[in-house]
């Protein structure tokens, strides 16, 4: 299982609080990080996002309708290692404020209607157990019922070991449900965030019409340690990273976070036969680092969007 790479909080001069980037280790102001969508402005490292932060970055304001919010994990095997599974669930719920490792709902992405589902890696490594599987099924059903695009952002260590074979079966369950989406000819866009591994990568995440990866995201079915132990070789530089996956033809594109929302919206339009120009054009920033391309106003708008208390508007009706 992979660690989420929590940032060190360092005391700066006087009352200034700065954070060290886990990648380049240079110090960044939290407000700057927030405005840059949690991407290090110095090295471009895409820091992990919570599910709610991700939803706040992708969904248009105001119209979030959560799906599957009544689902609660159980302990079907009475699994107990050093700590009972029930305790692990409670601890994860307390520290994340979430019921489970996946949050899904209906929303608009730049006015394009979508069913958006997001994994939260902080919740037991974003692992897929019975609740995550069921939440995905309900989200797929909602997409089919509303005839909208399915958008899924994954970051997951794979199956939820503590639910044993039932967690493995969530792979089958989610794949079966996606058949309905295909039959309804609705688009499915998948965004692979760091890290997406194991059973999630080998089921829903790779069955999308279009697969987007975030820069630097680690994408691999097997864990890096398992590969090293089995092959008795050190992993090559850049192994399993989004950029390598792109060069081996496993993903369609690597899109920086600053461009993600627009790119998803454009794909939704195009895959439904519309013209991409329906989305306000601002030109592609892909060749330049985002922090040199955006206007100040745009960054400020982002910051304002992020500053809104995500939770209050996430807690709306259910279906």
């Amino acid at each position, binding site marked *: 299982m992979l660690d989420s790479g929590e940032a060190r909080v360092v005391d700066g001069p006087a009352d200034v609080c700065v954070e060290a980037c886990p990648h380049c280790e240079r110090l960044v102001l939290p407000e700057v990080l927030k405005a840059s969508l949690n991407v290090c402005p110095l090295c471009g490292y895409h820091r992990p996002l919570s599910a709610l932060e991700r939803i706040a970055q992708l969904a248009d304001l105001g119209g979030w309708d959560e799906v599957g919010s009544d689902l609660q994990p159980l302990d079907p095997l009475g699994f107990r290692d050093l700590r009972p599974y029930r305790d692990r669930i409670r601890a994860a719920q307390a520290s994340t404020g979430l019921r489970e490792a996946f949050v899904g709902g209906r929303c608009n992405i730049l006015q394009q209607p979508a069913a958006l589902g997001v994994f939260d890696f902080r919740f037991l490594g974003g692992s897929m157990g*019975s609740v995550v599987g069921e939440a995905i099924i309900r989200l797929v059903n909602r997409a089919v019922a509303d005839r909208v695009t399915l958008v899924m952002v994954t970051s997951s260590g794979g199956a939820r*070991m503590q639910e044993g*074979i039932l967690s493995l079966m969530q792979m089958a369950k989610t794949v079966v449900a996606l058949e309905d989406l295909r039959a309804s000819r609705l688009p499915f866009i998948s965004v692979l965030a760091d890290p997406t591994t194991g059973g999630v990568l080998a089921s829903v995440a790779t069955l999308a019409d279009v697969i987007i990866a975030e820069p630097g995201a680690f994408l691999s*079915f097997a864990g890096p340690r398992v590969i090293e132990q089995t092959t008795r070789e050190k992993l090559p530089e850049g192994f399993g990273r989004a950029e390598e996956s792109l060069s081996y033809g496993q993903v369609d594109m690597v899109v920086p976070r600053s461009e993600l929302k627009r790119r998803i919206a454009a794909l939704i339009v195009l895959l439904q036969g519309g013209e991409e120009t329906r989305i306000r054009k601002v030109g592609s920033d892909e060749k330049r680092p985002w922090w040199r391309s955006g206007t100040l106003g745009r960054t400020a708008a982002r910051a304002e969007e992020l500053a809104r208390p995500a939770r209050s508007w996430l807690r709306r009706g259910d279906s």
Partner: protein
Amino acid sequence: MPALPGVGYGEEIARLQRRLEELRGEESPTVAWKTVQAARAQGRPQTLEYLSHLAPDFIELHGDRLAGDDPAIVGGVGSVAGKAMVFLGHQKGRDLKERQQRNFGMARPEGYRKAQRLALLAERHSLPVVCLIDTPGAFPGVEAERGGQAGAIARTLQVFAGLQSPTVAFVIGEGGSGGALALGLCDRVFMLETAIYSVISPEACAALVWRDASEAPRAAEALHLTAPDLLTLGVIDGIISEPRRGVAGQARVMSRRLKRTLSSSLEELGAVPPEVRRRLRRQRYLNLGVFAG
């Protein structure tokens, strides 16, 4: 408890559950671990041995038509009791040389693509698909990952989810994680009495949560990976009993038992129109999972 899959199996399940309860009574903490060892034992009959008894006219077909042929998964056509079908199965290999050549039954993307190809071939020619599962898991290697291991498994699941053909799977030894499930999304799933089916190997599980691979026996217990466990969890439809002294050298006897279950399953599945069969398969997998709400 999730709904039990399958139609017309109520009595069979009730009988096996009674038997399971008897077994539970005499269970020692090492039953699961003993089963793990039995499931991996080298003397266990493997796919090709079963096929030589089950379908003596079996003709092996090779290759994924893209990149290569994976010897870790064998496939082909053959007939059982005068009825032709497509067979797929992991082959771990016998002696060290064959085991290395077959990569210990750990398939690469080309293996899963071969499975997809042959499953679709079965569909085109209205043949059932029979899968024999026996793998530690998908091969964890750099080239396999670069070749799209995850996507290959996902697309295999997708092909089986939508297949018109009736499908029956038998876990004949080790059902290791996604690499096993890739051949396991079927209308009927059975396990041999001392086979295992698990989301993760007990060793890897122990290393992760106990931080000590030698806790594997405890992990094996906690994971609920034996055939009776899977039957109670509603993941499989039945258990194929084994001779008292185990399956080593018993390919002929076990093939007869497999054949009986296979024939009755295909008869049941054949009585249902393909569309209904697909709907029931879909429902079976949608029902798996335990949660509140």
